């Protein structure tokens, strides 16, 4: 009898539920905000580190091997393991553990692409600038960086989309952004609406970020449009 009642009373568990979204908009927005904040911080910090590293690797040739090698090995370590290995030193429940881990992963892509971009500056362009009296700093800011920009931005796009996917793993530290919705939904009797909200927002965020960065690349490097 109770078995029958349970069958009849078993609540529906739809994948799409507006009432869930409406009733939990505060939570969803908070998770989304954490996701975006972690992603933006990751990319900004990684860029600030990657561009000087790439310049260093280009100036001091023997350094490029170790720089790319170390970041390559780091890239092979799964994020779940990296968070576990960093947590004792950066905090078991601190969002900085997630942030530092994500920056390390973004670095490899950004250093490589910046290096490729800088190496792609044609020698005659550099010579022409030298002939016009450009010093090292002016050469970098006004000639090399603009020419390398499309390659760097391609790296930023890959790193951003990958980071948005990776933030979810931060759930082990308690700071997984939209990933919290996924695992909370799973632990909450497989609450489909919560899981779907987390998954759909994650993919939408990645696609939106990629679109914005694509537009930004076109605005920043109008001369490269035809080649793109």
């Amino acid at each position, binding site marked *: 009898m109770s078995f029958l009642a349970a069958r009849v009373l078993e609540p529906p568990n739809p994948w799409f539920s507006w009432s869930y979204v409406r009733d939990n908009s505060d939570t969803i927005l908070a998770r989304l905000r954490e996701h975006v904040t972690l992603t933006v911080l990751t990319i900004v910090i990684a860029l600030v580190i990657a561009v000087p590293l790439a310049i260093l690797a280009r100036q001091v040739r023997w350094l490029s091997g170790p720089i790319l090698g170390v970041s390559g090995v780091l890239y092979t370590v799964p994020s779940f393991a990296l968070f576990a*290995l960093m947590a*004792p030193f950066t905090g078991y429940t601190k969002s900085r553990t997630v942030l530092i881990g994500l920056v390390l992963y973004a670095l490899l892509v950004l250093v490589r692409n910046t290096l490729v971009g800088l190496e792609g500056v044609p020698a005659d362009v550099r010579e022409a600038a030298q002939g016009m009296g450009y010093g090292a700093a002016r050469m970098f800011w006004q000639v090399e960086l603009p020419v390398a920009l499309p390659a760097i931005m391609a790296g930023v796009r890959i790193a951003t989309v990958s980071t948005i996917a990776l933030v979810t793993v931060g759930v082990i530290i308690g700071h997984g952004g939209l990933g919290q919705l996924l695992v909370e939904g799973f632990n909450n009797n497989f609450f489909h609406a919560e899981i779907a909200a987390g998954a759909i927002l994650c*993919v939408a965020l990645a696609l939106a970020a990629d679109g914005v960065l694509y537009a930004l690349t076109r605005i920043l490097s109008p001369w490269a449009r035809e080649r793109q």
Partner: protein
Amino acid sequence: MSIFSETLAYLNDPANYTGTDGIPYRTVEHLAISGAAVGIGCAVALPIGLWLGHTGRGGGVTVLVSNVSRAIPTLALLTIFATISAIGFGNRATIIALAIFAIPPLLTNTYVGMRDVDPEVREAARGMGFSGWGLLTRVEVPLALPLIAAGFRTAAVQVVATATLAALVGGGGLGTIINDGFGQQNRGEIFAGGILVALLALLTELSLALVQRLVTPRSGREQRSARPVEAADVPESAAVA
């Protein structure tokens, strides 16, 4: 106690090497899940990649598949599959989710490897009387093998890395050690789990790099090491893990 002595204490405790929660069982389970996922991925991606590459069609599709797959978090797919009761809980859901993520690198590399075959070589083979099947199996596949091996390596390393996440949604594998460690606030267990998972990923990467080297002819190897760094070289292994 320092984190290192706690980790050593965990790793030295014989109790952690027995039963279905033990390190050996979890390692074998991790490899079995990964192997099954890569196997399914190959069974789906290789025939499609070979066919598309052989006919020269579908270049846009392979690019689209690899770009879109990057935007889908593995954890999202793992969670969704783990809650669909028709698939069943635990490792079966994990295997299917991971197999889906093994497909893009396999498909892209197989397709690109096939398209990279010198048209003149293909022409010459045709002139020598090779057609359809013979051209595919005796000319194109042997020439595309180094890139197919590179795709296999990327896919396998990525799957081994990602299989760790199954622990978050009721699956098995070595990730359970990290997850249990966090659940029980056992610092030694967390760190030991991290070391074991990282070691397994690095060992997979190293051994498959060796396999890739073995199937790449010497001339191709020199060509590879001689060229400058390329953006496309960035491994995608952990990118979605």
